[in-house]
């Protein structure tokens, strides 16, 4: 089965350090999403790319977060500097919005980030 690959699976870092999370979307999918999941807020959208162009990053704290898609096979989410409140599970998902019959999202396994 095709899958979305996220690395790393787990990351523990000290406050102030840079964190980079990577995502390889499913080949042929043209939309990529970054979500953050916490107990308090649930699943929140951070950024959304379509055909590698950023369409919506309104959910992302701009002063410390950045999201890019350097090519169709790689999406990155960076936090610099990291803070304890950034501790969460970060999910990447991809989909093909050119499909008329199935626009189901496929999620990666997530990156569990702990900032101490």
């Amino acid at each position, binding site marked *: 089965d095709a899958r979305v690959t996220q690395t790393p699976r787990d990351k523990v870092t000290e406050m102030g350090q840079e964190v980079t999370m990577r995502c390889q979307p499913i080949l042929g999918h043209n*939309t990529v*999403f970054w979500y953050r999941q916490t107990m308090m807020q*649930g*699943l929140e*959208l951070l950024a*959304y790319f*379509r055909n590698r162009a950023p*369409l*919506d990053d309104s959910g992302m704290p701009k002063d410390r977060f950045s999201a890019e898609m350097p090519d169709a096979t790689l999406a990155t989410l960076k936090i610099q500097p990291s803070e304890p409140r950034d501790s969460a*599970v970060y*999910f990447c*998902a991809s*989909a093909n*919005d050119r499909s008329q019959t*199935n*626009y*189901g*999202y*496929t*999620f990666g*396994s*997530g990156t*569990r980030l702990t900032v101490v």
Partner: protein
Amino acid sequence: GIQVEQSPPDLILQEGANSTLRCNFSDSVNNLQWFHQNPWGQLINLFYIPSGTKQNGRLSATTVATERYSLLYISSSQTTDSGVYFCAVSLFYGGSQGNLIFGKGTKLSVKP
């Protein structure tokens, strides 16, 4: 923005029982998906169902877009069905599907 409400928030079942989970949404949508998050955190897409009815094994879903709700049916529940079930919706236009707005989920526990 679109509001998504799921009910019940928690559900405990005995293995073999059937259940119905509900998702209400506040505005017109043309993209509705159901997900299962297992106890290990993995989010699995169950259905892409903007309207109509679909079935996959013991699971089926129905969306009545005009009345702004969707139902997820689980029959003959198994312990492996435990986890959190999320409904998510979006409204797309201009050729772009937009991003999904998630409900808070229904936490299901199936006891042996």
